[in-house]
């Protein structure tokens, strides 16, 4: 395997390698930015079209898209060995992009589903924050691979100008820079440029 251009930070390197592993499995190059729809195609994952909601009972549609729209972003379900991902159509395109990639990362990384556990007589659902954090980190790495991110920031160019294959929020861009261990470089180059 040729020498890869990777983050120096241990956590950043680990995330980058996981993203590269997913890309290699699905015929993407190590430095290729990945669009959610393209990765879903190659993984054989179905993305449910938002028009699905038009076919629901009007009361259920109101509950999901109006009354409780803030309480969910996406979910996935396996039917006949095919995974289907359904996203909240009231969310922004930027949030939807990273949400789909998070769901795909969970699948590709073999993350365990949440489990029901009984604790002192109570039934609760487990939530593994480290797993959620890894999925979001890998999703942002798929959208913004390290090599191009480094070159872009090192050239003193604005973070918002980084070319991405799908809409990405400012918050997600900033998270990616920090997780890749590039925040100090980014800040220094921005100071020099101003």
């Amino acid at each position, binding site marked *: 395997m040729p020498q890869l251009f990777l983050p120096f930070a241990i956590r950043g390197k680990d995330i980058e390698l996981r993203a590269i592993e997913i890309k290699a499995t699905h015929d993407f190059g190590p430095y290729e930015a990945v669009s959610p*729809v393209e990765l*879903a*195609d*190659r*993984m*054989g*994952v*179905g*993305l*449910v*079209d938002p*028009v*699905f909601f038009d076919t*629901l009972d009007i009361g*259920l549609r109101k*509950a*999901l898209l109006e*009354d*409780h729209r803030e*309480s*969910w972003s996406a*979910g996935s*379900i*396996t*039917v*006949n060995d*095919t995974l*289907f991902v*359904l996203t909240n159509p009231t969310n922004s395109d930027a949030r939807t992009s990273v949400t789909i990639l998070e769901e795909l990362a969970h699948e590709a990384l073999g993350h365990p589903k*949440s489990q*029901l556990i009984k*604790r*002192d*007589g*109570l*039934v*609760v*659902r487990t*939530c593994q924050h480290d797993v959620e954090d890894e999925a979001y980190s890998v999703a942002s790495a798929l959208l913004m691979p390290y090599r191009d991110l480094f070159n872009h920031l090192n050239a003193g160019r604005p973070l918002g100008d980084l070319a991405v294959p799908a809409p990405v929020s400012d918050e997600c861009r900033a998270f990616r820079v920090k997780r890749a261990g590039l925040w100090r470089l980014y800040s220094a180059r921005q100071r020099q440029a101003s």
Partner: protein
Amino acid sequence: MPDVRSSGGVDVRDLGQLLHERRSAANKTLRQVMDEMEKALSASTLQRIEKGAVPEPQNVPVIAKWLGIPTEMIRWPGGLDSPEPSTVPDIVEVHLRADKNLGHEQAMALSEMFRTLYDRLASGADVPLLNKPNER
């Protein structure tokens, strides 16, 4: 004040209010309560719970014991007394109901959404997709 006994239980989200009321009535500080709980929870955690944070599952028995409420009387959102689920939509429903971040109505709406999606896909009905996942 939340009704503990007559309703057959107390909602876990009401524990903070109960804690605050009992502590105030006993004229005790958060640190005194912390000591009485044998420091199982910090004073700051107790304060957060009193202000409305839902206690972590492992802390619920400690708080319940201090309040004198049997653990089995604590109810989580949605109720969790269902038999073991067997179908995928049933499993999804139980997981959603067990999510302490979701209210009952939210959990049931999401459950119904997944049940509808699952039933249509499993029966071979046409579900619109944004992509063509099986054509590679």
